[in-house]
């Protein structure tokens, strides 16, 4: 998909401190038109601070923060975004339809109420007071509020927390539909399968910095390990003795093997056990890649601290 060269949201060398704590330490981020960027990182990595800056909720101590080429605190910039925050207690006595009507009134060219409701799957809730909804339903309403202004950029901060699997997948469908319309999305999530299902690009944060940025494939490729699973009579100890194998464990009949070169291991397995069944080979998931990346970053940080001390 063609992108313009100017990013619609940008952090450039941003530093943000809260007292002695440095939440962002030279953070860089660029988001382009029509793409979905997933911002990942352990708790305290600085994701919420990065989003707060882009929404104009807080101001940076140093560096540049831009939304559509402007200061995010300018209302003109924010008229082009939709927002779903992690925790916002909306007025409990207002009905869903009233909340949608109010939020849509802030935008120059919003969607029709029925269209927003349909997209977010809240059509049957329009007449209900917000406080009477379940947690998952409230999240869906918040999603409806985020998309009702026909935004060019949608901020989704942990959008599917508290949703059941079905609701989560419906939200993913809606997000894909928005992306198809050309809307860009900045997503933060703890569910890596969510990033895997939706993201064009992934940006991993740790300790206030971006430590990796690229496609989901690139991130997974950084982890060389592959997973081999099979039903076999071979003992875990035997397999552990093979040089190519880095990790083995057994669950009932099933062997779980992690190895850098899966092909060699598979060949040896088949030679050693002619009864072997249900062989599966998988590349490491985003979860493993993510864990490894952030662990490396933690170790590097610890090493720097030791040197300093």
């Amino acid at each position, binding site marked *: 998909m063609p992108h313009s060269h100017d990013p619609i949201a940008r952090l450039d060398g941003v530093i943000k401190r809260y007292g002695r704590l440095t939440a962002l330490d030279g953070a860089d981020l660029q988001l382009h038109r029509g793409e979905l960027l997933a911002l990942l990182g352990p708790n305290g990595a600085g994701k919420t601070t990065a989003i707060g800056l882009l929404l104009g909720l807080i101001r940076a101590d140093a560096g540049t923060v831009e939304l559509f080429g402007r200061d995010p605190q300018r209302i003109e910039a924010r008229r082009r975004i939709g927002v779903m925050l992690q925790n916002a*207690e909306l007025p409990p006595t*207002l009905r869903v339809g009233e909340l949608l009507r109010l939020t849509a009134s802030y935008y*120059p060219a919003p969607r029709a109420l029925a269209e927003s409701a349909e997209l977010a799957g809240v059509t049957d809730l329009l007449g209900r007071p917000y406080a009477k909804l379940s947690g998952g339903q409230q999240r869906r309403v918040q999603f409806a509020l985020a998309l009702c202004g026909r935004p060019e950029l949608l901020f989704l901060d942990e959008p599917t927390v508290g949703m059941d699997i079905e609701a989560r997948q419906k939200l993913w469908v809606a997000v894909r539909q928005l992306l198809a319309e050309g809307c860009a999305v900045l997503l933060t999530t703890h569910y890596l399968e969510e990033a895997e299902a939706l993201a064009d690009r992934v940006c991993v944060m740790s300790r206030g910095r971006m430590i990796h940025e690229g496609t989901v494939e690139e991130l997974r490729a950084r982890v060389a390990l592959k997973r081999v699973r099979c039903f076999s009579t071979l003992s875990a100890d035997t397999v552990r003795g093979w040089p190519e194998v880095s990790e083995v464990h057994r669950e009932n009949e099933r062997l779980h093997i992690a190895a850098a070169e899966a092909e060699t291991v598979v060949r040896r397995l088949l030679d050693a056990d002619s009864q072997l069944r249900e062989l599966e080979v998988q590349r490491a998931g985003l979860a493993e890649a993510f864990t490894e990346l952030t662990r490396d970053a933690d170790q590097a940080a610890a090493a720097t601290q030791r040197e300093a001390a």
Partner: protein
Amino acid sequence: METVISVARPIPTIDMPRSRMLGAYLEEARSECLRYMRAPGFMLPIMLFPAMFYLLFGVLMAKSSGADATRYLLASYGVFGVMSPGLFGFGVSLALERDGGLLTFKRALPVPPGAYLLGKMLMAMVAADGVILLLLAMALSLGHVTLSPFQAGALLLTGMLGVLPFCALGMFVGTLIKGQGAPGMLQLVYLPMSFMSGLWIPLSMLPQFLQQIAPVWPSYHLDMLALAAVGVNKGPLLGHVLVLVGFAAAFLLIAARRLRRHG
């Protein structure tokens, strides 16, 4: 769709038509009124508390002193009553909404400037006149006070506009303290200030020192206006109006600045 978008920065904005802008202000005010009308548990005590005070001290206790005392106390308890929706209706709801994340959400959204605060202000003005109407009803029926329609109207107007400086003060406190701490802090402002402005007991009966510092309190100046509305105070009013306007503007500016920057 293969469209290449070329943009020069800053990326041009879509203009918000003026009619939609006005619509947003109206929607905000409407929502604010709706949500509190549906939850009377918040506003009703705020309005009934001063009304009960007037009934006890202004009507029942003052019966022996005659209708003039009741008339005097109608004005000063009216001011006491008007302060309550300003300080609590405005300040406490703001403090709670800062705590609950609603304010953060509103700040992230393109809410037109001040629409959120104007909605709350309107709500406080309606509640303030609700208090005055309650007091008027008690004064005219139980207290045998006679007021011309013009005087009653002037008192209502004083209450409606007089709530604004206290909205500003409530808002300021609401930006300093989050959530459940705000009501207690506001009581510490509300009750002593009312007493020292002569709202419960006429100023002339208070110690000399309190009489001298009374002009420091905005409620003193509003009391002077309310007394004029019911025909007790015949002195000049412009000075009191200016003090109240200045007080409201100062606190509004400080609070709005804090909200915009820190939320």
